[in-house]
């Protein structure tokens, strides 16, 4: 049984969920321990699942034994396995960091009490993300989306300050509206085609008005949650004002969840509409997001807001290649580029937020102006930020570089010079905002500042550093990602 990939699909969802329950029931001081045990089991499940997937190919688990269309199917292909691994690795690094962050002296009792909720919330989020990456049922995906949003909003609110509560409220409202748009889309799909399973829909869809309505509703809903320009307005305040480990989870993983559904929905359900210009519209919005988000990032004076606007920009890249996904010759290359970008951005952005959090604990504020001379004080955090910046600006050798390489390759082969130009321009703008942060770090520090500095614990800087190293190492993973995606994901397009 344990040597079949299908066995591990539900385990990857149930293990963190059961751990979340235990973390809720156990006394608060036990929560980190419970989290560690749950994380270890989840790691084993994801590891077995991925290894067996490579050996045996795509797998499927009909929950309750009914099978689609009556029941709900879980399924994994190369794409879902990559997302599961990403979540596990980034999540584990963030959890390690969070442990150091919460034990940092200077938090009062009430704050500590609030931070204790981080552990069950993070486990809920992990379980929900795994469920999202594995579900094949459009309504079940709605439930996972809501689990993800509730956990994300509650995590955002952990910072407890009025600003962050307002940001969390806005995030919750946008997120709920997005979910309701998505759910209305599900209603239209069920009304027209009478099934909820993605594979059944893939076989049955026709270009009915309801399909267009569902596509519009679900795309807008998921755009809200993914924060694609112009629906990004909620993201910077939420991501910048949350505590650092939460910012890393939100920017690194949570926005990728809704994008993942959007990607699958277009490739597997809405593909008859690929010639309507909708993919070009998404591409256009992505292009604007890159330029506008980068310019905003350059203008910021607060470090975490800068990183948050960088997320707004980088989300644009996910949509930039939408039309190419439907061009037979470029589809595989475009998908590989997008997935490499997801992996690179998640690790680099999480590393950036984590190192920013470590630096912020040291300097006591969030202004870029106070960063002078920190290289001498916190070399590991600074190097981590620099390495993450290399990947964000897509300089070689980094995961960002290899992702954009695939993207450029696909767009030039198709003769899309405009896309190529935006990719290059976005990289240059990213280099500028990264330099705005990195340059002062190497300047001579003020003596007065040096005296009141306390250093961030090693667990924090080390986990930021290891994620940054991962972002660089991903530059050698391009072919591996492509091979992984060839397990059922490349060619998931409904028309072949």
């Amino acid at each position, binding site marked *: 049984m344990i040597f079949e990939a299908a066995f591990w699909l539900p385990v990857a969802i*149930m293990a963190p969920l059961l751990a*979340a329950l235990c973390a809720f029931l156990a006394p608060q001081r036990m929560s980190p321990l419970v989290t560690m045990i749950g994380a270890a089991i989840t790691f084993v499940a994801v590891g077995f699942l991925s290894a067996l997937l490579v050996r045996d190919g795509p797998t499927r688990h009909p929950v*309750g*034994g*009914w099978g689609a269309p009556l029941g709900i199917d879980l399924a994994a292909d190369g794409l879902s396995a990559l997302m599961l691994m990403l979540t596990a690795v980034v999540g584990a690094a963030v959890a390690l960091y969070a442990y150091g962050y919460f034990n940092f002296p200077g938090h009062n009792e009430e704050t500590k009490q609030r931070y204790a*909720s981080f552990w069950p919330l993070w486990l809920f989020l992990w379980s929900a993300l795994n469920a999202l990456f594995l579900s094949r049922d459009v309504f079940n995906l709605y439930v*996972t989306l809501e*689990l993800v949003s*509730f956990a994300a909003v*509650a995590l955002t609110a952990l910072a407890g300050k009025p600003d962050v509560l307002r940001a969390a409220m806005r995030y919750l409202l946008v997120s709920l509206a997005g979910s309701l748009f998505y759910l209305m889309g599900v209603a239209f799909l069920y009304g027209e085609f009478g099934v909820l399973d993605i594979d059944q829909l893939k076989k049955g869809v026709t270009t009915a008005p309801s399909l267009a309505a569902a596509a519009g509703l679900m795309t807008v809903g998921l755009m809200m949650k993914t924060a694609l320009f112009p629906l990004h307005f909620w993201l910077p305040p939420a991501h910048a004002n949350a505590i650092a480990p939460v910012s890393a989870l939100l920017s690194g993983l949570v926005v990728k969840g809704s994008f993942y559904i959007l990607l699958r929905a277009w490739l597997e359900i809405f593909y008859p509409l690929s010639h309507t210009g909708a993919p070009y519209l998404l591409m256009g919005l992505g292009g604007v997001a890159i330029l506008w988000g980068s310019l905003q990032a350059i203008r910021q004076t607060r470090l975490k807001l800068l990183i948050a606007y960088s997320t707004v920009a980088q989300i644009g890249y996910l949509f930039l290649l939408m039309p190419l996904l439907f061009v037979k010759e470029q589809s595989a290359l475009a998908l590989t580029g997008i997935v490499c970008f997801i992996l690179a951005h998640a690790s680099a952005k999480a590393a950036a937020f984590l190192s920013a959090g470590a630096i912020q604990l040291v300097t006591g504020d969030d202004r870029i102006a106070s960063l002078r001379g920190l290289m001498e004080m916190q070399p590991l955090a600074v190097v981590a930020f620099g390495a993450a910046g290399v990947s964000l600006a897509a300089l070689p050798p980094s995961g960002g570089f290899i992702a954009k390489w695939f993207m450029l390759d696909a767009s030039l082969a198709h003769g899309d010079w405009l896309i190529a130009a935006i990719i290059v321009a976005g990289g240059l703008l990213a280099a500028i905002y990264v330099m705005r942060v990195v340059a002062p770090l190497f300047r001579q520090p003020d003596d007065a500042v040096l005296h009141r500095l306390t250093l961030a614990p090693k667990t924090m800087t080390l986990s930021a550093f290891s994620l940054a190293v991962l972002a660089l190492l991903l530059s050698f993973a391009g072919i591996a990602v492509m091979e992984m995606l060839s397990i059922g994901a490349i060619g998931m397009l409904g028309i072949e």
Partner: protein
Amino acid sequence: MQTRDIDRALQADDDTRLTRPRLFVLALTTALVAALATAALTFPANVGRLAPLAIDSLPRSGVLNPVTAVLLNYRGYDTLLEVAVLLLAIVGVWAIAPRARIWFKTPDTPVLATFVRLLLPLMIVVAGYMLWLGADEPGGAFQGGAVLGGVGVLWVAAAVWLPHAGRPFWLRLLLGAGVAAFVIAAVGLLLLTGGLLQYPPEQAKTVILVIEGAAMFSIGVTLAVLFIGGYPRREEEK
């Protein structure tokens, strides 16, 4: 917060004039409604969708009420995640507001408290009956849970008995019982049959009722705790 405060807050916000941005929003939503309505008119009539399959599979589901069969058997996994949503909401609420803003005190007259005390056991029986009925007729864990939630709200509002501020273990246990029963059943069946939530048809009804029973109490208590909006809190004794 008293209802008076809410009224005043809303009145201050009663500016419903159609300003230019609102006209823009109005135009946008009208266009959306028009487009969706046009599409909705084209739904195929006279197709069975999943209904025939759901009805035909009833004999293997362990229950006779088709809605319960969908909720607890065919799509039981949805319901499992949904019970997790309920628990997550509590964890979220407690993370946002550790202490409830309102505290509750027993009214000066003993009528309400006595009434609620008498009502609680009666409503537990009613909820249990609705749960039992749900297997074959309209009813089920959510309806029963809603009844318990209702009496729970009365219980809290009349402050019949509340724990001091905090999160006692028994309360957490009640809140987590639904998820616990569901996940343990799901994983147990996974290990036994190799399928998550795959009930053996002969035992299906028993398993469903046990899960539903635990879920019902959790739903009821969750609703009452959501009503409090924080840790339970009694009026401070002076």
